[in-house]
C-alpha cells in the first residue's frame, strides 16, 4: 500500500514513483549481494534522474475493468495475496493466477457476488 499508493482508493493501483522507491531504499541497502545489486540500480536511476522501466507481469485481458479498491475493501488485508500471490516472499515476482475470465467468475461465484457482465465489461 505504501508503494501502490492508490490501490485502495482507485481502480488503478498506481505505479510507485522512483521517489517512493527511494523512500525506503535510501536506507535499506539489501542483505545479499544480489539484492544490493538490484537496489543499486534503483539508486543509480535516481541519481541519473532516469526512471527505470518495470516489466509488466500482471496484465488483464483487454476490455475488462478491475476496480482494485472494491476488491481490497471486500477482501481486506488478504486482498493482494489472493490474486498476486505472496509477492513479499518472491525474490522475483511471477504471475500466480491466470487472470482469465473463468478465474474471475469462479471467485465471484465462491463469494456470491455479482456475475453481471456489465460490471466488468463496458
Amino acid at each position, binding site marked *: 500500500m505504501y508503494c501502490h499508493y*492508490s490501490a485502495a482508493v482507485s481502480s488503478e493501483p498506481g505505479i510507485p*514513483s522512483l521517489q517512493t522507491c527511494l523512500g525506503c531504499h535510501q536506507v535499506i541497502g539489501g542483505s545479499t549481494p544480489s539484492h544490493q545489486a538490484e537496489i543499486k540500480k534503483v539508486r543509480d536511476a535516481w541519481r541519473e534522474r532516469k526512471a527505470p522501466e518495470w516489466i509488466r507481469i500482471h496484465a488483464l485481458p483487454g476490455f475488462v475493468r478491475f476496480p482494485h479498491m472494491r476488491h481490497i475493501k471486500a477482501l481486506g488485508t488478504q486482498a493482494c495475496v489472493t490474486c498476486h500471490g505472496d509477492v513479499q516472499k518472491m525474490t522475483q515476482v511471477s504471475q500466480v493466477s491466470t487472470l482469465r475470465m473463468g478465474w474471475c467468475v469462479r471467485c465471484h461465484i465462491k463469494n456470491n457476488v455479482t456475475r*453481471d457482465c456489465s460490471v466488468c465489461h463496458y
Partner: protein
Amino acid sequence: MSNSVDRRRFLKVLGTAGAGAAAVSACGIGPEPTERLIPYLIQPEDQIPGTATYYATTCRECAAGCGLRVRVREGRAVKLEGNPDSPINRGRLCARGQAGLQGLYNPDRVAHPLVRNARGTFEAIDWDGAIQRLAAKVRESQGKGIVFLTGAEQSSFGDVVDEWMRQVGGRHQSYEAFGFEALRAGNRMAFGTGTLPRYDFANAKYILSFGADFLDTWLSPVEFQNGFSRAHAFDAGRPASMSKFVYVGPRLSLTGMNADEWIAARPGSEGMLALAMAQVILTQHLARLPTPPDASRLSSLLAGYSPRAVATATGIEESVIVRLAREFASSAGGLAVAGGMATQGPNGAQNVAAVNILNYTAGSVGTLVKFGADLALGSTNAFGDLTALMAEMTAGKVALLFVHGTNPAHSLPGAFQQALGKVAYKVSFASYLDETASACDLILPDHHPLEQWGDSRPRAGVTALQQPVVQPVFDTRPTGDVILKLSGKTGTFQDYLQAKWRTRHAANFDQYWMESLEQGGIYAEPPARPVRLAADVSKISPAPPATAPEQNQDVIVFPHANLHDGRGANKPWLQELPDAVSKIAWHSWVEVHPDTAAKWGLATGDFLVLESQFGGEKFPAWITRSVRPDVLAVPTGQGHTAYGRYAKDRSANAFALLGAQANAYGGRNFLVAAQAKKTGEHRKIVTTEGGPRELGLGTTEVLPLAKAKALHPGDHPFHYEETPEYAKDAVEWWGERQHEKAELGNYKGEQPRWGLAIDLAKCTGCSACVTACYAENNVATVGEELMQRGREMAWLRLERYWRTDESGNPQGAVNQPMLCQQCGSAPCEPVCPVYAAYHTPDGLNGQVYNRCVGTRYCSNNCPYKVRTFNWYNYAERDGQFEAFPEPLSMLLNPDVTVREKGVMEKCTFCVQRIRGAQNQARLENRNVRDGDIVTACQQTCPSEAIVFGDLNDRNSRVFELAGNPRGYHVLAGLNTKPAVTYLARVVSHG
C-alpha cells in the same frame, strides 16, 4: 514535436496500467503484449491514477466566457463540462464548448514556430530564432504602421497587447466576423449608451425575438438558453404555465423553431413592426404611460407607424400586429430582443432602436433589459474599423501586422487577402494554419486556452479565470509570454496575471487566488444602470431596404449554429453534428422554399449558384418551408481554403457573397441581392432526417397550454399509454419473469432501475447532448462519405418534427432526443445469439462489446433504431476512416472501451459513470444517492431538459417526472416498457 511524442507514449503507458488498455489499444483482442511501465520520477500531487481530477477554467470557443470544469485523467484532458459556479452557464455547456477539446488535441495544430522561406513555403524555426526575427521587425518599423489584430479580447491578455502596442507605437484592434455593431448603435440612438445590456430571459413572461438567435449564436447562447427554458418550459414546479415565445424573422433558426408562433416578416421590416406594436400599446394605454417628455417624443415618433400603415411593408396583417401588441403588453413582462437578420441589414441599427422603443413603452427596460452589465462584445471594434484597417493595408501604410484569435481572410475572402498582400511583414499567433495564418510570414503558435493562463471579462462583474489543465501538447508558447519577452518585461504572463489580480485584492492574496481558481473566477452582480430615452428618438426611422430587383433574390447569410463563423470547421465533432434545423452535416446548403423550388424546377440536392455583386458560390439546395418564399438563406462556416484536414476544401464559403464595405452604422450587410441559377449538378445531401411519415404511433406528443394546465396527476392523456385489457396478464407475467432474472448476480440491497426523463417542453434541439455523448463515450466520427450512407455512429440523435399550421407552414418544431430506451422488455435482447445484448440486473440493456460477434440482429429488432454498428475499424492507425488521428486519441475516455470493427454499440446511460458512482458509494459504505450519477447528456443540457435517476427510488426526481401526466413512452404500443419517459411538448397559443 518529438518531445511531445515521447510524452504521449509515456501517458499512454500510464493509461495502459489497467482499464486504459482497452481504450488505447484499438482492437485489443486478448491480453496486451508485455509492456514496459515507466513510472514518474516524482509523484505529481493532486493526481491519482484511475481517478479523474477536475480543474476549473474558462471556455474560449466564443466570447460568452462560460465556465469550464475539465476532467483530467493521467494528465490528459478527456472531457469538458460546465462549471456550476459560473453565473453565466451554470454548469451547462453547448456543443461548441464541448468540442473545445478537439481544438486542444487537433491533429492539424501548428506544432512549432514556422517561418516563410525564400521559396515561399513554411519551414520550422526554433523559438529564440523566431522571437529575435520578430524583435528585429518591430525595431525596423520604428513605431510606424504596427497593428495587432485580435478576436474579442476583454481580458488581461488584451491589456498586455494594448500596453505593448502603446510601447512600440502600434495599435490594437479587434475583429469578430459577427459583431454586434447594430446593437450598440441602436442602443445609442434610443438611450444614448453604446453598451450592451443583459437580457433577463428567465423572468420574462412573453418573449418576442426580432431575428435574435439567442439560443444558438446571439451574444451568450448557453446563459440565454438556460434562462429561456426557465421561462418557456411548462414546469409543474411553479404554477403550471409558460411564457409565450414569438419569433419574427424570414427563416426559422434553431431559436426560431422553438417559438410558439412564427411571424415571417419581410427581412429588414422588423423595426417597423416593433414601432407599430409600440404605437398600439401607447394609443390603447396597454402599459403604464411614460412621463411627459418621453410621452411626447414617443407619440411624435410613433405617429407614422399605425398597424395599418406598416401592414404592407412588413407583410403582416394589421390584426396580427394588434394581437401581438396586446399579448406583449398584457403579459406584464414582455421582453423583445433584436438580432440576426433584423440587425445585419442596412437599417439594422434603426431596427434595434425600434425594438428598444417597444421594450421601453412596455416598461421592460430596467426590469428585463438591464444596462450596466456591459457585455464584452460591446467593446470589440466595429466592422468599419476593420475595413478602415484594410484600406490602410492596401495603401501600404501597415508595415507590421500581428494576428491573434481571428481569421478575417476567411470571413472576407479575397478582399482581406489582397490587403494582406500589401503588408510588409505579417505575423500570426494562430494555433491552426487557417486562411490568415497561411498568408503570414511568421507563425508563433499560441498555447491552446486549455494549456495556458488567462482571464476574460465576459461582462461587468464577472471575471473568469483560465488556468492550464494539461501540459502543452506541442512546442507552442503562450502569446502573452512572447509579448512580455518582446516588450522587455521580466516574468511570464502568469506573473503578469497574478500581479494584475493582486491589485484587485491584495489582502491575503494567495487564499483569494486559490479560491478564485477553484470557482473559476470571481462573480458579482453589477448594479443596474438606469437609462433614459434619448432626446432625438424621433429620428429613428427603420424603413426596410428596397427588395432585390427582379431576376435577383434576397439572400440571407446566417451564422452556422455549430461552426459559427467557420472556427468550428476543423473539429470533426462539430462537422458531424447535424445542424439543428436542416439536419445537414459536413457541408453547407441554401434554404429554398418549396414554391420557389417549384418555380425553378429545383429538387433537394440540386446545386444553385448564387451570384451577388461581390462574388459567387454554389450551394446544394435544401427545400424547406422554414424560410420565406422570397428569400434564400445560406449558412457560413464551410468553404475553408485552409484550416486543416477537416475544414479544407469542404463545400462553399458563404462569406464570398458579402461585400467588404461597412454600412451606415459601421456594421456589415448580411442581406445581399444575388442572382440564383441552377447549375444542373446534383449531390446527395448528408442529412440524418428520415422520411416525412409520422404514423401516429405516439413518437412525439404535443399539448396546447390550456389542455396541459387542465391535467391532473394520474391522467394518461396519450394513446397507447394504457396496456390493453387482453394484454394485461401477459404483461404482468413478463414483468415478473424479468424481475426474477434480475435477481441473479444481484448487488447488495434493492435493485435500481435506471431511467431517464426528457422534457420536450424544455428541449430546444441545440444538440449539445449529442456532442457531449461523442466526447464521453468515444463515439467515432465517420466523415462525410460514410455519413452520406447513413453510417453515423451517434448514440443520441435529435429528431426534429415540424409543428405546422392548417396551411402546412411550420410554426415551430418539436425536438426529440432519441437514444436507447433501455426497454424493460427489450426486443434486442432475446435475439442476440451470444448474450452480448442482455438485461442487466439494474435494468439496462447491456451491450458487451467484446462478446459481440456482429450478427446485427439486435438492431434489426430495435424499433427505435438507436444501435450503431462499427462497419470499419475507426480506431485503426492511419486507416482510411481513422476517427482519432494522433493526438486526437488523447481525448479518448479511458473508462470507455473503444469499439472494434464488426461490433454493435449503443447508449448504456453512461454505464461507466454509474459503475464509478457505485464503486465510490461502496467505498463510503452507503448506497448511491439520487443525483450521484449524471449522464453526459444531462450534465451538458443548457435547458436542463434531461434527468437521470433510479425509477425504483420513490424519492428520486426521475420517479416523480415519470409519473407526470405529460409523461409518455415512445412506441408504448409495442410493450417495450422503455426506461425513458418523455414529457409532452406544450405549446402556448397566446
